[in-house]
């Protein structure tokens, strides 16, 4: 099941019986048909372990389960929405950016330190991701929120992409992710360019960048 983009800030999803969808609580704008919205105690998928994991990691965004038959419109806070279709690969995204996603996707939590050790943790701090980030894996669609429009930048092995940590939204594919610093003496005396930290993404995949440096 996919999301249909009605405009840049609204998506429509069709729900059929036996299929479910997770969405951020309060993100439903309107619906038609018999659809139920149940707050998910576990905040997503997996058992009790995953729930505790998410709580500890601070990635437990309030989610609800959407079931039934009908169409549902989603949108939140006037944020732009980017629909990302996954074909078996893993999407890395902050939990609070998730607007809605297919119930068939496997949800997990990743420790930033597991990609690049201490530098991974520093990277999480600088980009505002914190120590943990959410992963979604499988086949299905994800609707992600961003402040301002989203551009999709392809990453190829020959062309790594540098992204402002505050403008980073999400990425998927086989991507290595490291923080590159360009701190010189100018930054030390307060005359820096303001672009001392960048995320360097290399490998092959796609990174999504928002046209704003404002976090959600």
């Amino acid at each position, binding site marked *: 099941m996919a999301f249909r983009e009605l405009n*840049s800030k*609204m998506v429509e999803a069709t729900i059929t019986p036996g299929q479910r969808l997770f969405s951020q609580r309060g993100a439903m704008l309107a619906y038609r048909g018999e659809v139920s919205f149940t707050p998910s105690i576990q905040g997503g998928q997996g058992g009790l372990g995953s729930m505790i994991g998410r709580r500890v990691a601070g990635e437990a965004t309030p989610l609800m389960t959407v079931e039934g038959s009908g169409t549902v419109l989603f949108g939140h806070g006037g944020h732009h929405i980017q629909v990302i279709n996954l074909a078996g690969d893993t999407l890395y995204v902050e939990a609070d950016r998730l607007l809605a996603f297919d119930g068939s996707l496997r949800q997990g939590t990743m420790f930033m330190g597991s990609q690049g050790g201490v530098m991974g943790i520093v990277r999480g701090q600088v980009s505002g991701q914190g120590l943990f980030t959410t992963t979604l894996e499988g086949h299905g669609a994800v609707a992600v929120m961003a402040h301002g429009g989203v551009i999709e930048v392809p990453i190829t092995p020959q062309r790594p992409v540098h992204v402002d940590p505050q403008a980073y939204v999400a990425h998927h594919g086989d991507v290595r992710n490291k923080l590159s610093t360009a701190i010189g003496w100018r930054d030390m005396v307060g005359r820096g360019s303001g672009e001392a930290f960048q995320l360097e993404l290399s490998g092959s995949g796609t990174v999504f960048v928002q046209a704003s440096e404002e976090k959600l």
Partner: protein
Amino acid sequence: MTHGPVIYDPTTLPVDDNVNAYTFCVDLDGSQWFLQKGKMIAFYGAIEFNGIGHGPLDNLVRSSFHSPLHASDWVVAQGKGKMLLADRAFDVNSFDLDEGNLTIRSGNLLAFQPSLRLKQSIVPGFVTLIGTGKFVAASNGEVVFMEPPIRVDPQALVGWADCPSPCHHYDHGYLRGFLGGVRGLTGLGGTSGEEHQFEFVGAGTVLLQSSEALLDERATGAVPRQDGVPGQAR
């Protein structure tokens, strides 16, 4: 990009149409428009803005303004020229009514022609426009038109036309049964935030905005206290 900024002058500004997604241009030719205070951002020509209650306007107000609660928020623009309307960088759109009716959230309505009659809706916070003419409304994101039957989150509702029965709908099926009882007593698991909707049935059109965040209404009567605006006491 391929081209630079477009520069408008009084002759090239559109006539009663959008300049871009966020700005609407009204062409006044001795005619009058009602507009909400503070939504005019610029004008060419000789246009007079008079508050409702201004003597000579009594006739006009009597025939097309029936909303005393909102009277202090509205002015009448008259004269010759072109004026630009905008609101908080919201998307702005004009709509035509032909012997029709439309009920809209009072904060979303920017301006309307006096050939329309404005009335307070029975639903608090909404006003109804009846008659034939053009009006300009703002919405957070583009407006999406939907046909009933539909249930709408209260904050996403912009307005509706022709629907005879807007009503409340409550939905807390998940609070039933044993687990639901535990949930209701302990508050465990929280609420979905979607227990309450507006329901529309019958023939008509429902207007939705893409966002649930209603920006705060700002006082627009006095000079706003804001950096860079002269003439105010700090």
